[in-house]
């Protein structure tokens, strides 16, 4: 199993919370960028030794829709070259304002079979506050259009804990999400990343951001707990800290990350991993386009590092990870190496019962506290 990730670093505007490698106002670079990623796809070079055929493709950004016609073209050439395995999961991220019927149909025809819609919220004031370009009606409309275009695997991204968002706001939004009935839901709690406009707007005295009160830790925890309870009740499987899916609709591309699998990242700032080696491209799109050697950095993980990554990635999954599997792969038994912290967290009830290494529901909300002990 190996995954292919394609990064599109262009945006129409930056959202206040976003610290991803994406830029507004670089439209002039789109054409040369398409050429650059096509070249890199043809010749990934480096240490990628995972074969030419990928089981999943994920096109993320930024905003992939800004590539317009180039996008189906790239997809078609990938399929034509036999780079995607039969039955491959092909996902693309899409903002509601770009989810037009013809766009979605073209992509579907080019092989996209999974759509990830960036809803983020269902409240117009909130959406405006965080710098989104769509409103709630457009978000809901996008899901309908996707269904009409023939997509049977649509995910929506949501953020909770936004400034000005109360528990009741979140509850009513989530009820409407359930009513709309996407196949997959990613519900992230807001992380205030340093250097973003959101972070700069924080007033620690007043506990506000973007001029609106930030939910307290307790409120955010309550939102998370309720989300899990409600979505599971509505027939979604909670399979990863922030991910919920109807049966058979887990995101295979992301699962591969959490399983510690191999993946090739193409595009500015994209990360790749192959059997304990990791490397990443130049993040600046202009430099990425120009450079012959697009490699920005690499690392060779020690067994100990791989062990720790397998654990903290595996623990993101609700089913956790099997200690014996890790031992078979890496020759070290995490139960032995981490005996002390594991005993500590088991005693505190943060680990789920059973033979697998997995977090309990309480442990999922405090995942970082636990994971810290494994790095």
């Amino acid at each position: 199993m190996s995954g292919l990730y394609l990064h599109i670093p262009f945006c129409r505007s930056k959202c206040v919370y976003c610290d991803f490698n994406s830029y507004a106002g670089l439209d002039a670079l789109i054409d040369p960028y398409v050429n650059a990623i096509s070249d890199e796809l043809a010749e990934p070079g480096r240490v990628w030794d995972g074969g030419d055929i990928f089981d999943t493709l994920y096109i993320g950004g930024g905003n992939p829709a800004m590539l317009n016609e180039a996008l189906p073209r790239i997809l078609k050439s990938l399929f034509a070259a036999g780079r995607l395995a039969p039955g491959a999961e092909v996902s693309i991220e899409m903002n509601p304002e770009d989810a037009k019927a013809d766009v979605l149909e073209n992509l579907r025809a080019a092989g996209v079979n999974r759509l990830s819609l960036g809803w983020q919220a269902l409240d117009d004031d909130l959406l405006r506050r965080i710098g989104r370009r769509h409103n709630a009606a457009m978000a809901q409309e996008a899901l309908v259009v996707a269904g009409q275009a023939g997509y049977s695997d649509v995910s929506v991204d949501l953020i909770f804990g936004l400034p000005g968002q109360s528990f009741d706001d979140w509850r009513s939004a989530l009820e409407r999400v359930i009513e709309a009935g996407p196949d997959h839901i990613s519900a992230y709690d807001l992380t205030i990343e340093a250097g973003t406009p959101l972070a700069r707007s924080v007033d620690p005295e007043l506990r506000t951001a973007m001029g609106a009160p930030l939910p307290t830790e307790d409120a955010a925890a309550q939102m998370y707990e309720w989300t899990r309870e409600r979505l599971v009740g509505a027939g979604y499987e909670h399979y990863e800290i922030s991910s919920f899916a109807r049966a058979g609709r887990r995101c295979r591309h992301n699962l591969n990350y959490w399983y510690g699998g191999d993946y090739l990242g193409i595009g500015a700032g994209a990360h790749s991993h192959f059997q304990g080696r990791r490397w990443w491209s130049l993040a600046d799109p202009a430099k990425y386009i120009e450079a012959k050697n697009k490699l920005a950095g690499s690392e060779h993980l020690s067994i100990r590092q791989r062990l720790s990554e397998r654990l903290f990635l595996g623990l993101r999954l609700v089913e956790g990870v099997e200690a014996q599997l890790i031992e078979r792969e890496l020759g070290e038994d995490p139960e032995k190496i981490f005996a002390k912290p594991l005993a500590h967290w088991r005693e505190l009830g943060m680990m789920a019962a059973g033979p697998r290494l997995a977090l309990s529901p309480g442990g999922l909300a405090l995942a970082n506290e636990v994971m810290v002990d494994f790095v």
Partner: protein
Amino acid sequence: MELDNLRNFCIVAHIDHGKSTLADRLLEFTNTVSKREMVEQVLDSMDLERERGITIKAQAVKLEYRADDGRDYIINLIDTPGHVDFSYEVSRSLAACEGALLVVDASQGVEAQTVANAHLAIESGLELVPVINKIDLPSADPEMVKRELEEGLGVDAAEAVSVSAKTGEGTKEVLEAIIRLMPPPQGDPDAPLKALVFDSSYAPYRGVAIFVRIIDGSIKKHDKIMMMATGRVAEVESVGVFEPDMKPVEQLHAGEVGYVFASIKNVQEIRVGDTLTGAKVQAAEALPGYDEAKSMVFCGIFPIDGGEYANLRDALEKLKLNDASLNFEPETSTALGFGFRCGFLGLLHLEIVKERLEREHELELLATAPSVAYRLEMTDGSEIFIKNPSDYPSKGVGSIEEPFISATILTPPEYMVAVMELCQDRRGRLVDVSYLSEGRAQIKYDLPLAEVVLDFYDQLKSKTRGYASFDYDYAGYRQSDLVKLDILLTGKPVDAFSAIVSRDRAYDRGKALAEKLRKLIPRQMFEVAIQASIGGRVIARETVKAIRKDVTAKCYGGDISRKRKLLEKQKEGKKRMKQVGQVTIPQDAFLEILKVEE
């Protein structure tokens, strides 16, 4: 060299008035240090001294100067620390001199340490030559400074020299004034050796250099000498002068300043203030000497990594080689593990030692709240001293005394009320108010030292926008109504947080401490109860609720290195926390709680 052609002087000043810069100019002007070798603050040999712009150790240097009268002079400059913590070093240096330059900033005017140092110099019988520095500043007002010197200090400012140590203007005039106004040393070159030990310094491989001012007689290699206070006898290995590096000479004569090596391996064997004399032909009586520097402020210093204990001990021993005023003894804290209770001259001394330990010895350290030594009279009639609040006995205490200081604060009159409020608030007793000039009031207060060691100086500066200056003398022990305040976390007392406080304020302070700790202690896996208690009675309680959520969003685009780095950073943060029983406390908490406003 005739005694007439010799001068020994020191420079005294308030901090930042330009003492070290003036010394630089004098060295430069007399070609003692060539322009090429010139670094700023030549006499401040430690990086820390240069960075902070302060002098910590006394230094001596020999200047050669051909004066306007055509004669060649040797002028010994003994540089002194400018900070109140090190005033004992000032008094040592003064005893080795006949004159002192009193440097005053032309725009700042007379400050608290100007007053203190001027009085010290006058009491030591030195000829005082005022130097008004920084006359290049647009805000310079030399006439105002002269008035303050004359009216406020009673110093004759007629012969004051105006200089700019920055540009070098007036340097020559200073040298001329030293020769014209300061008397040459008196001394009998043929009498038995009598020399004042004014400092000492440890040099690797060579042992201890004894800094001396020869009063009578002379000293040379192979002489047998005796330290009069300790009776210790030693043979001289070499003698020399400071240029400013050590340079051996044949002999040191009466009136001169220099160093002596005499196979002494440890500064502890030298008592600064002692008198050196000949082992066979002895001086009739010793010089008056001076009081030993006493530790006034104490705190526990603990390695963050318990495994560093032995390294901390070695580092403290190394520092002590050159700093006889640093004291330490092992201490065990249930909260912080193994460390040392250290004694310092004052807060700056504490800070400097801690910084040197961290910087020069690469140790990560945690220091507890500075405290003073209390004298307890027990009901059974015995007397004990307590340097650590957690040693306070649970019963049998009759009465308790604490050290007081006599503080002198100089401030523009508009801040007088603020200063007095601060002093009242710190249990001060007003002694006197007077005016040095229209623009400068002098306020004298008696204050408990314990109230000063926390953040008094910072508070004073902030309440007077930096205009007030402060100096103090120790004023002995006085009885106070004090109690021990304990802080308990999840029901267990944390010794490092214990404090001895005035009974009147114990309740408010306990409440404020508990509240502050609630803000400082991060949420943990379980609820943490914080209690303040006096004599077993809980007077305040706060709760840190259990943590409920700590999870980050997805690893974007497979960027797992970033996720790992974030976790590693979080782990580093945890490492910098101290585990006290079940509770994790940030190291800052041990310092931050000192800044509690009641």
